[in-house]
């Protein structure tokens, strides 16, 4: 049977039409951008099992960070520490064999690899006043001396559970954070961000919508859900 066009829809699709807004004094304090449709994997294994760790880093090309609240990154794959035995991998959509790689690397170890791609999205917040934006609803100390590039933390932002990571500043030195937010909360959080940025202004690039999906990455989802 012929199926209608299958498209992936980002949880922020409704925000595509939200127009950017200038703040007081014409500020453009932050840019809000969605990095939709990344692959999100939740990994669990025993961190004292060095063989399992080695197997994972070989498979992924990056070592699992063992230092709390840090992430490792290589060739577009980022692995975030979530807990002493839990990590979040965020990888580009194109990395379709990722799950298979890690699952097979871990065969024989007590582990868990869970595809949660559909369950969360990444919002990038960059700009001179990004920290201020967070401060409206998050109790973490994000000061540059405290929360350095390479660090990440799970916390609450406007009562919503999020993972915040401090990324390398962009070429102009404006600082950049990525937050991972669960799909069901994403719309609320995006509205909250825009509201909180009222004074400082924001540039909206949320809601990367309706990306046509190649059959490739559909099979990716398939293998993850077997």
């Amino acid at each position, binding site marked *: 049977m012929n*199926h209608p066009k299958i498209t992936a829809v980002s949880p922020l699709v409704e925000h595509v039409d939200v127009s950017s807004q200038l703040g007081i004094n014409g500020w453009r304090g932050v840019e809000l951008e969605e990095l939709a449709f990344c692959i999100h994997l939740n990994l669990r294994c025993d961190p004292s099992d060095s063989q399992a760790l080695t197997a994972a880093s070989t498979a992924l090309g990056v070592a699992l960070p063992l230092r709390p609240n840090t992430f490792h990154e290589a060739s577009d794959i980022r692995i975030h520490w979530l807990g002493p035995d839990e990590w979040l991998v965020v990888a580009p959509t194109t990395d379709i064999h990722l799950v298979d790689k890690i699952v097979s690397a871990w065969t024989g170890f007590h582990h868990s690899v869970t*595809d949660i791609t559909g369950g969360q999205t990444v919002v990038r917040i960059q700009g001179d006043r990004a920290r201020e934006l967070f401060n409206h609803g998050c109790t973490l100390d994000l000061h540059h001396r405290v929360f350095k590039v390479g660090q990440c933390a799970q916390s609450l932002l406007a009562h919503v559970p999020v993972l915040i990571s401090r990324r390398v500043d962009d070429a102009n030195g404006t600082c950049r954070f990525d937050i991972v937010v669960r799909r069901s909360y994403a719309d609320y959080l995006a509205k909250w961000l825009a*509201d909180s940025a009222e004074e400082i202004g924001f540039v909206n690039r949320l809601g990367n919508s309706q990306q046509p999906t190649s059959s490739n990455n559909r099979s990716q989802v398939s293998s993850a859900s077997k």
Partner: protein
Amino acid sequence: MSRSLRVANGGSIRRTRLLSFSFNGTLYSGFEGDTLASALLANNVRTVHRSFKYHRPRGVVGSGAEEPNSIVQVGSGSKATPNLRATQIELYDGLTARSVSGWPSLRVDLYALNGLLGRLLPAGFYYKTFMRPRFLWSWYEHFIRKAAGLGQAPREADLDHYDKLNIHCDVLIVGGGPTGLMAARAAGRAGARVIMADEQAEMGGSLLSSTASIGGKKPGDWVETVVSELTRMPEVILLPRSTVTGYYDHNFLVINERRTDHLERPDPRLRRERIWRVRASQVVLATGAIERPLVFSNNDKPGVMLASAVSTYLVRYGVLPGRKIVFFTNNDSAYQTVLQLVDAGMEVVAVVDVRSDPQGDLIQQVRSAGVPIFEGHVVVDVRGGTSGLRMVLIARVNKTLDEILSHKGELRCDVLAVSGGWNPVVHLHAQSGGKPVFNEECASFLPGPSVQNERSAGAGNGTFGLADCLREGAEAGRRAAQDAGLTGDGSVDIPKVESHVEGSLHPIWVVPNGLAEGRGGKKFVDLQNDTTVADIRLAAREGYRSVEHLKRYTALGFGTDQGKLGNINGMAILADVLGQAPGKIGTTTFRPNYTPVTFGAIAGREIGSTFFDPTRKTAVHQWHVENGAEFEDVGQWKRPWYYPLPGETMNEAVRRECLATRESLGILDASTLGKIEIRGPDSAEFLNRIYTNSWLTLEIGRCRYGLMLGEDGMVMDDGVTSRIGEDHYLMTTTTGGAAHVLAWMERWLQTEWPHLRVYLTSVTDHWFVTSVAGPNSREILTKLCTDIDFSADAFPFMSVRAGTVAGIPARVYRISFSGELAYEINVSANYGRSLWQAIMTAGQSLNITPYGTEAMHVLRAEKGYIIVGQDTDGSVTPGDLGMDWIVSNGKDCIGKRSLSRQDTRRENRKQLVGLTTVDPTLVLPEGAQLLNEPAKEFPAPMVGHVTSSYFSPSLRHSIALALVKGGRSREGSMVYAQLIDGRVIPATIGQPKFFDPENQRQKV
């Protein structure tokens, strides 16, 4: 009649900016930089308020947060703001304010009759009367309530918005006076992240009304220099108009920043107020001191002011609050103000000093300036009215200050400036857990040992000399930075200031007037609550002797000023009455807020329909919206409740949705159910412990229903769990219970059974889930999915298969909550919309009908399936639900032991039954209570209640589930639902199964 009291020049007001404002309907003008209080004084407005109990006229007493009298209502409509202190309102053009008391007007206040009846109204009088006849109390209360209260709450919703910021810092400095400025400078230079907050519009604190030179500069210029240095430091945040209102545990402080009230036309994007939630490594309290009034007869008359306020109005606002000023003091500081007045060329009538031989440098200067000083004298009474003072009466007093030796006559004046010494602002120190200690020298309380990471400095620490304040501030800032771990050099030079020798203060708590106690004019201790010395004595006499009883019996310190002026005097007076030292009596408890904080600011931005609480939405939420769904709140989720077609009632819609599902095909968005991945070799064992039934035998690809108990044996959650792989399960939970169940299982795993090799991961958000239910569900799935064999044998009830539905990789479960043949399709939520659309399109010919939670509830109730939380309530066991079968005998599980307790194994517990009403069209209300026979008298014995109840469209009669005492053995007998509206509805007990009791339909 109004003549201006503005002096020709001086003050830091901007005289080029004339502002007009109204007070009680009269137009006045003032300058930019004025407060409402200074502008009113400049316009010679004397009476600004009527007192709470006696409705005596009251004028401005202070110049800041301590002000008890000048409470006003500002603005109107959605901007109406009650109970602001005129001393803290920055003037802007067009400001409108009015008194909060006085009826019909401030000048002629009929309630002032209370004053005549004053003797009938001692402290606590209402506890002694209004008791008979009993039914009249509500009538009395009506008038008591009307007489009470200050301003009026707005009648319109607030259009302003508020904001919060969380912030961490190394050093939080409270107070931007000389002490705070030096502390900030030192801490800032050491490289610390500094926040300095001051409640006033500008930094500078008492320097704003000082004329002393500092480091060779005028005070204002010096402040300017420091502020501009601080502004250049990137890690320093200066917050004017920001009150530190609360000091909580673990060095968490709350700052209330006011951002727009002083602006005529603020940018609408600016949030009116902002709460800073500060976690400070170290805190420096440089909060200064508040001058203490003196307590004498009629000390509340308009025109009696704090000496420091007189100084502030003159130096800072260019207002001379009177033409002829008398000073009344027991210490040297007021002499400073006398000199300021003299320097400005004003007339000072005299200084009345209780000390018989005051010594300090300043006294000499005042004397040589030719101002008469009445040593060893007191003011025994004052005369005056709503338009100000006329004179004060003075008398000679004995050495111990408790007896009048001789009356000395009167001094004509229009202002009496009083100073009874200084009370360091120890509020925040006390809030932090510190215990203020009484200090004899300043006759007040000073900060005690620190409990949290906090230090006091300057006047707030009882250090009153400017030079000492500067030094102490710098030191406090430097050390705070050090203690916060900063290693930078925090040294600063201490600017030179002139200093003088000060004489000591002679405390006097009540000024005698030569009459017996309670005679003569009232002596007010708490101006806002009209608490007098006589009230305090009465309270002590009646046994209310603890300082806390005193406070509650007399309302001392209970007002919006929280007793900033009156408390210390009141406690000392009590101590005196009881013959104890004030230090022994102690203070009442200091609590947040230091000054009142707007509710809106505390609520912050997270209010209203969008932000009050996060809303969780499923991947097809927008489709539901576009298709007219009404939503039901389940936890934070929005779930489609029903989808009315135009003109359709809820009942009609639900009926249509139910019938379509039973007859052909319904589709439900079931994404909100909790979903937890369980992985690891011990998963089955884990499930065995968590669920009541056995999980060791479930085959891969099969599903099983499970019931979860609390350790108390009561049903906590339920759901279907399926075995996906060898060591891999997927559990579903109720929508509302999802987070709790995951947390609960994690807790058992981590704390009790860490040896079990199991990992839990929430996948609730990852999977979009839709249930396709009805006799035609197999047909549509066969259409949409070619890689799964949907035949009954290949894909039996209670199993799961992986495949591709509408081109989307999916897991398909054959489970049913409706009793129909049904499938639940799970796909990555990114494809939720595509899947939903595809099904809707494919189902068109089958009359596919989306149904909401209401129809879902009807369908499941027809089958007798329970909803945890609706048919159970935290007191229901599996046995009560007729589900003993699900509690496995062969093993332990959480909560099992509780089931064998005496009460949980009792016969006559409430048990789940089905009810059918005798009149099939009557739907029992959910929550109806059941009786064995209609009640003739009350209380009547109840035997159960209705938990779920609907009209069943398929059966064409009403159905209900109920919990009834011993219900399972009562099949066929009658119960009566007797309702609050008087109706009695008879119903018959039956099995909790109404439709297809043999479950034929879901198994086809």
